């Protein structure tokens, strides 16, 4: 049992506890944010030092491989950006700043564990660690909308957990083990591949994780929770939580249900088509930018599910690459929204009119991120879509890719409408919009990342390919 394999998670947990304790004994509260960021960086250094090792520990429950480290680093990067961009926003709940940072760190720990555990009960515990932290964060503002968001998320999350647990119980009952590799062995040796009970169990697992990734028909909570939650938390939910869901689905379907998985392509393909279509169609009519991005994130989940439907090494590499690009892009968009909305106190798209003259850099950054979400070069979103679509085509899913391309065209309308309002509309007031340096740094990092991955995607793609090969030695 090598504790060093768990060092990224342990150091992050220790940072969370330290932040809570520091808050009790220290007067200068501003250091809390930077302590948290430092903890994230330390954890990332530990994770980087593990790159290249392929080992299991804790009796096979914990796997450290390129796949888990890729995701760990993704989660840590997201967390760092969220923490940096929350420094100003957290004034809204100044008395509970430490709790906020600690909960973000705990949720990140849970996600990292989700990507690296290969045992059903550990997966469930990690999922709950993530989930419970996020339920609290969603309701952190304590106003009517935020409380509603927190409560809805909690109740529906509990339903999803119950469904998931039931699915796990069925799988355990049929195979007699909770370890993913042993489940795979049991399925093939006992010949229960076509068993209805196993199918039922897998459907329930899909439903439980479908809730996390916000796939139709498990997406109903998304708009309400995204709209009500504090904006940095919304940003965190929309990228990290989704990525964690995909990580665990990939892990379970490749490691445990590998033999049964080929029949699953069709289910994922149909869900992908429905998810992206519903997400885009409903997003068209939204007037609130956070709600619009909520539906957009549902649509993006649909694109990513093309990779699940394709079920090849190339496709899982494409999923990882897409998630990283999507994380940068969506975070950038949300950070710009935090900066702008904080000042104008509104999330309505109409109030963004003429923003290019009040906040030229933020408007430009937001436009870049929206262009990337649409999938127009030279942005990360374009490369991500090209990659996942070509994986889809290579897996004989041309019909699905055509639906996705049509969807991308539809999505251009609502994404670029915001750009149009910002660039061609008349400003509602002449007051300039300024923001803290934390937000500026975070925004600069995301925008440069979006451009860098759009211009030279290979620097990340080669790592996502290595990580994907973990599954198919």
């Amino acid at each position, binding site marked *: 049992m090598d504790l060093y394999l768990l060092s990224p998670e342990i150091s992050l947990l220790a940072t969370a506890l330290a932040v809570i304790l520091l808050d009790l004994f220290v007067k200068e509260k501003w250091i809390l944010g930077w302590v948290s960021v430092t903890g994230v960086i330390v954890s990332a250094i530990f994770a980087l030092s593990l790159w290249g090792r392929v080992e299991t520990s804790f009796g096979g429950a914990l796997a450290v491989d390129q796949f888990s480290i890729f995701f760990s680093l993704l989660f840590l990067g997201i967390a760092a950006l969220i923490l940096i961009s929350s420094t100003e926003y957290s004034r809204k709940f100044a008395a509970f700043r430490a709790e906020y940072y600690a909960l973000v760190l705990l949720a990140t720990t849970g996600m990292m564990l989700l990507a690296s555990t290969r045992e059903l009960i550990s997966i469930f515990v990690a999922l709950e660690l993530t989930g419970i932290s996020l339920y609290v964060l969603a309701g952190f503002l304590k106003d009517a909308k935020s409380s509603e968001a927190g409560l809805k998320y909690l109740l529906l999350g509990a339903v999803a957990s119950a469904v998931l647990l039931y699915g796990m119980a069925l799988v355990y009952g049929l195979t007699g083990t909770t370890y993913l590799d042993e489940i795979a062995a049991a399925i093939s040796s006992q010949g229960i591949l076509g068993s209805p009970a196993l199918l039922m169990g897998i*459907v329930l697992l899909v439903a439980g994780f479908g809730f996390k990734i916000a796939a139709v*028909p*498990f997406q109903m909570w998304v708009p309400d929770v995204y709209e009500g939650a504090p904006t940095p938390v919304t940003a965190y939910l929309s990228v990290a939580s989704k990525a964690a869901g995909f990580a665990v689905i990939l892990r379970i379907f490749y490691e445990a249900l590998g033999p049964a998985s080929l029949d699953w392509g069709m289910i994922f393909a149909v869900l992908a088509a429905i998810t992206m279509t519903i997400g885009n169609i409903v997003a*068209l009519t939204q007037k609130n930018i956070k709600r619009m991005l909520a539906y957009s994130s549902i649509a993006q989940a649909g694109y990513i599910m093309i990779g699940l439907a394709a079920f090849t090494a190339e496709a899982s590499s494409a999923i990882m690459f897409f998630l990283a690009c999507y994380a940068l892009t969506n975070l950038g968009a949300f950070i710009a929204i935090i900066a702008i909305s904080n000042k104008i106190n509104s999330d309505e798209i109409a109030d963004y009119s003429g923003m290019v003259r009040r906040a030229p850099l933020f408007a430009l950054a937001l436009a870049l991120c929206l262009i990337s979400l649409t999938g127009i070069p030279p942005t990360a979103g374009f490369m991500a879509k090209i990659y996942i679509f070509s994986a889809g085509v290579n897996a004989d899913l041309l019909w699905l890719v055509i639906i996705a391309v049509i969807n991308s065209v539809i999505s251009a309308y609502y994404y670029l409408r915001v750009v149009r309002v910002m660039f061609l509309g008349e400003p509602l007031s002449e007051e300039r919009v300024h923001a803290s340096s934390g937000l500026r740094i975070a925004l600069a990092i995301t925008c*440069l990342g979006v451009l860098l991955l759009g211009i*030279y995607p290979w620097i990340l793609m080669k790592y996502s390919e290595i990580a994907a090969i973990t599954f198919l030695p």
Partner: protein
Amino acid sequence: MPNIAVWAIFLLPFLSFLIIGLILRPFFNNRPMLSAYTTIIAIAGSLILSIWALIAVNGAENHVLTDVSYQWLSIGDLVINIGITMDSLAAIMVVTVSTISLLVQIYSIGYMKGDGGFARYFAFMSLFTGSMLGLVMANNLLFLFLFWEGVGLCSYLLIGFWFHKPSAARAAMKAFLVTRIGDFGFLVAVIFLYVKTGTFDIGELHELALAGVLGGTTLTLAAIGIFSGAVGKSGQFPLHTWLPDAMEGPTPVSALIHAATMVTAGVYLIARMFPMIASSETAITVVAIIGGFTAIFAASMGLVATDIKRVLAFSTISQLGYMMLGMGAVGMGYASGAIDEHHAMALGVAVAIFHLFTHAFFKALLFLGSGSVSHATGTFDMRKMGGLRKIQPWTYATFLIGSLSLAGIWPLAGFWSKEGILHEANAYAPVLFWLAMITVFMTAFYMFRAVFLTFHGEYRGGEEGSHGHGLHESPKIIIIPLVILAVFAVIAGWLPVGDFLGADVHFSFFGALTSWLAWVSLIFGFAGILLAYAIYGRKLLSAESIGKSLGPIYTLLIRKYFIDELYERIFLMRFLVDGVFVVLGWIDAHIVDGAVNGVAMVTMTGGKVMRRLETGQLQVYGLAIFVGILAIVAFLFMFN
């Protein structure tokens, strides 16, 4: 090692952009000078490396120092490389770009002093320079296109630098949209070429074109597509309308756009793709005709403009037309079989790039000079100037040298490069040659009209200068770049640029005066100067009465042939801006809403459920989860 140094040429300004954007502007915003120094150090580094590269290229085999490609992307069968090349063409360009850029940055310290966006300005200038340097070094069309768009983006940001001024925001938008029309053709051509040949590599494309593998209609369409990109960027007719309006940006930006970056990119692109484009007779003839026509067309509008920067802008368009004409003429000679392949390929590039090289110096000088004038008077309107010769002696002297050089007076830089182009045009495109000759006359006239209106006569400004303490000579930081550029505007023509580019051009200081062509062009030039002197210097003829007697022609010129109005009414505003949004609005109203309504009408109950779902009832959400699970199970049992 050479590779790293060559990459550093264009990566240094990018690094400077990152440093300013990520470190200096967020944290040291109260010390804006740091940004200026960072930019200047980075571009000075580029310049040193460029000069080193130039010397190294000269000593290298075949004049190619490096030509490397790296894998950029591989998705399935699609493998795309990126890479840079450092050959004689790239070397000349990087030296020109970094020299001009460095001087412009130094000048900007004085010019932009006290502006609120000082750091932002230098960040964008770094990015602009870096993109242009990358553009001239790219060895692959896709990579080149990337920098091409980068240059376009920076020009948008810099022209609209004072974005709170509606006219600046509008000019920036116009520049962006108009050049985008050309870029669209360029992009289509790049993709078309890739589909036909399977490569983006410029060298490979040339081999295919020269070997005749790539030919016929395919080649012609691709070549014209690429040329359309150059037309947009270089402000050639009919996409020239953005360039005069681009004056809304700060003057050093105009100098940079006109002399070294942005507009020269179009000429460079044609030079870089010359072997391929010249392989299509139709395409190269189009290049020659558009170039020749633009030269005289833009010069005619320069005759009447009253804004000094606009005069210079029309002059740039006209001179870029010359460069296109030079390449077009050589290409026509090659197509008709008058020049052999080896000689033609070098010669076409050499005449155009030589003029680009000399033009960069005197045009930058003239722009910075006009900035210096406006620094004192607070205006660019020549009708409100006059008599500045005594107040700004340094500015006057340097501006005069620049004007003489542009007018093509022996032995200044402009004479030599213009001579090269006229010589080739006379040999292979006689009609266009006479158009170019008339342009020589017009050029001399409008430049000296500007000189006399600005520096001679009496001051007509009335109110005091922009700084409220009277008219004065500009500070040293502005004058020094002017003087350096003036030196180059004299000597740049004596440098063996043509030979360096592989063309067999014999340079002889006095020998040039033995040809009849030189004498004719000099006579045309002096005639223009004398006419300007008669009208604006001596007032022997009244400008107003001439204007009146020419009546409709004068109106036509002052309104720029009504092309702006044409585009505004019909093309740009109606079609591009309104049209796109009308189409989007129509899609919204009919297709999107129609689809939503249609869905709702067809499945009334479904529609009701959808609406109820959006009211946010938790029970419904939970129900949806279970209905979803049941639906998946049903689906599975049906198909398994």
